[in-house]
């Protein structure tokens, strides 16, 4: 490759199309195949309302995955997001205390709690040099314990309708599809913001640099510690948003977010993120999350029992990482 000397050399159309196709993340192909699979089982799912339903159900995971990507790209993991989601649901039910007028300040408080948890994660990793796996695992357990203590062990209270609207409400009337879920609006807005931050601002490039080579990043003047903290804060904020949506969708449940952290990591990897950092794309990660959700739907349609979901998820993580390692080696 190095012997090619001219920059911006004109390539033939065929080459361009081929290299263009090659640079498309395989996750989009996987996603389309899964959707076709769902369509063959039950065409109703591919009607606009079916797609919107799938998106609505997938929205918490998609948002969470986009946030997780910020951490993965900078070279870490965030295992605490599932318990931040759970705590958001628990906290909302207890703080709103059946009074809909409380919902707005409660949401602000929930974001505050999430950001603090994210900042603590980041500070542990950046300044105390605790590996992120351990730091966020600790945070997971701490928040889960705190949540259970807060509720006294059983779900209490309920979520007011105005709070739940984010997760299960619909905007109507909307032309063509008749009604449009609020969750999908939230998904679009949050995704747009995160895509902008990651792909069009300094922030994203610096996160990639930190994950790719932290030493070189430091020597290039990047504040590595600060960047890592920002990444965990972003991840925690997406966890709160995902928690709010999940609460609206599923109601009060002290383990609303359990297992989501691993799903988000798997989805990001499916979307081509490299687990040790330095490589990743927000749209592809979001597509990865949607693909995972589509896969669960398909398995469901095929009549496979629920425990198989977990097994399949495990196989997917292994398969995706092995594929990434294999294709990385081959291209070198």
């Amino acid at each position, binding site marked *: *490759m*190095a*012997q*090619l*000397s001219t*920059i*911006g*050399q004109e390539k033939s159309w065929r080459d361009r199309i081929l290299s263009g196709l090659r640079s498309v993340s395989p996750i989009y192909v996987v996603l389309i195949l899964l959707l076709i699979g769902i369509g063959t089982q039950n065409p109703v799912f591919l009607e606009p309302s079916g797609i919107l339903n799938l998106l609505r159900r997938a929205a918490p995971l998609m948002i969470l995955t986009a946030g997780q990507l910020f951490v993965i790209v900078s070279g870490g993991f965030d295992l605490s997001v599932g318990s931040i989601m759970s705590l958001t649901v628990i906290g909302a039910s207890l703080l709103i205390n059946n009074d809909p007028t409380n919902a707005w300040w409660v949401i602000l408080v929930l974001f505050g709690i999430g950001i603090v948890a994210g900042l603590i994660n980041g500070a542990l990793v950046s300044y105390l040099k605790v590996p992120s796996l351990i730091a966020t695992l600790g945070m997971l357990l701490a928040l889960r314990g705190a949540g259970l203590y807060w509720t006294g062990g059983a779900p209490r209270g309920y979520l007011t309708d105005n709070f739940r609207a984010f997760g299960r409400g619909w905007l109507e009337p909307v032309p063509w599809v008749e009604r449009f879920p609020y969750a999908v609006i939230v998904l679009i807005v949050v995704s747009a913001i995160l895509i902008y*931050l990651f792909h*069009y*601002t*300094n*922030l994203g*490039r*610096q996160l*990639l*640099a930190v994950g*790719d*080579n932290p*030493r*070189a*990043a*430091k*020597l*290039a*003047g*990047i*504040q590595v510690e600060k960047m890592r903290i*920002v990444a965990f804060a972003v991840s925690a904020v997406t966890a709160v948003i995902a928690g709010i949506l999940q609460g609206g969708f599923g109601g009060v449940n002290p383990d609303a977010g359990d297992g989501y952290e691993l799903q988000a990591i798997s989805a990001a990897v499916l979307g081509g993120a*490299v687990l040790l950092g*330095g*490589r990743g794309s927000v749209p592809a990660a979001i597509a990865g999350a949607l693909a995972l959700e589509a896969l669960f739907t398909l398995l469901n349609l095929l009549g496979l029992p629920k425990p198989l979901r977990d097994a399949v998820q495990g196989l997917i993580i292994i398969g995706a990482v092995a594929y990434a390692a294999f294709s990385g080696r081959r291209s*070198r």
Partner: protein
Amino acid sequence: MANAQLPILEARNITKRFPGVVALNDVSIQFMPGEVHAVVGENGAGKSTLMKLLAGAYTPDEGELFFQGSSISFNHPREAQEVGISIIYQEFNLLPERTVAQNIFLGREPSRYGVVDQRQLMRQTQAVLQRVGAETMISPDAEVKTLSIAQQQLVEIAKALSFDSKVLIMDEPTAALATHEVEILTRLIHKLIANGMAVIFISHRFTEVFDLAKMITVLKDGQHVATVAADAATPSQVITMMVGRELDQYFPELARADEIGAVALEVVNGSNAKLHDISLKLRAGEIVGVSGLQGSGRTELAQAIFGVEPFTSGRILVKGTERPIKTPKAAINLRMGFVTEDRKAEGIFPNQPLNDNILAPVRALQALLRRIKRFGTAEKPQLVLELVQQVDVRTPSIQQEVQYLSGGNQQKVVLAKWLASTCDILIFDEPTRGIDVDAKASIHEMIRDLAQAGTAVLMISSELPEVIGMSDRIVVMWDGRISGELPAGAGEEAIMHLATGHQESHRTAVPEPRGEGTLEL
């Protein structure tokens, strides 16, 4: 008595090649029992390769080794050790979490009924520690990580003795020791040779070489220059043998006096854990070369100035104003750049495209949420394209990930990175290491072009021809200090004198004013 004996270890016509370089070329040396034999030479002279060959870590491509008169060859260092040749590297081969006894008898623990006989292990360890005179200093059941460097070295020597070694090879044994520890080691080495052991060591410290060694072998560029008796040679003569090479490379012209401008950077009495009392001036338009042997503090100097491992005392003035530089970001903000020695570890982002590599420092100074320009900045949207042309990176596209570029092109990307941030003080650490000859020449020219454009350049290099060919002024480091400054065109010999902490024709005289430094280490 030693002279009458046969050599215990002999290298005969040894040649060792590595891809692209002949590390040792037809080298023959005899090592006598009961003698200390020092091997000296510049960086890259082939000393380490020789040591590793003798210790069985490498096998020669040509030539033979003789041990007590018979030809031997080793497939593994373990085989050399069993024969009686032990090597102690600068980085010790000890398991920090294990005890002294476990380390010394690793894999050879005395056993009874199939389990380790602890009592026997302790007894044997105690005995071997006694032989190095450390039985009161080091407990057999102390964990190695709790020991000082000097104590760990004694454990290594004890381990060698436990193999009944007849030859002990040491790589820079005193580099990390304090004065009294060097004395202990010296006494021990005298005791070992009195018992008939041959001790071979590499050292950059001439005081010790002449204090300890009976014979001195000089290597240069993989060639055996000479083996002389220490009492028949002076340090100056040895240095002359170490250097003296034709300047056969092409270097760009040095700066004319009118091209050199105001002081851009000044360090006054800078010190930290590794550097002592550094004072240095760097002017616009000037290339100051920094020479020094390995471990002299060359890289540490660059890291201190650039805020990676900042000075803990002293002052840095940038264009006449005192500035605290505690982070690389602060240095970059003051328009400094640092082209690091280890490209892969410190210079590039391998998975990122060329343009993001080049723009990293520029972006680091900008607001986090600022919208990026893909190939440049708001002021210069085509910046990357221009720089890639300027430094002549051979790449199919500026979107190419730099991991796929050759070493020379990666180095140009690193350089472009600092050009993008419009540095006017640039530090180069080994700018041409591991780069082929053509790319070398073009990097030399780029460095000179930068200086001509008014950049103040500090260039660290372990290659004397590069330092001499490029520098308008040469600063020589030794032992974490600046041991002297030489004008452009200074000879290799003059540099080596300063770099070995030894000043011209004072064989035994204590050099002033750094006499204490000499004795200290």
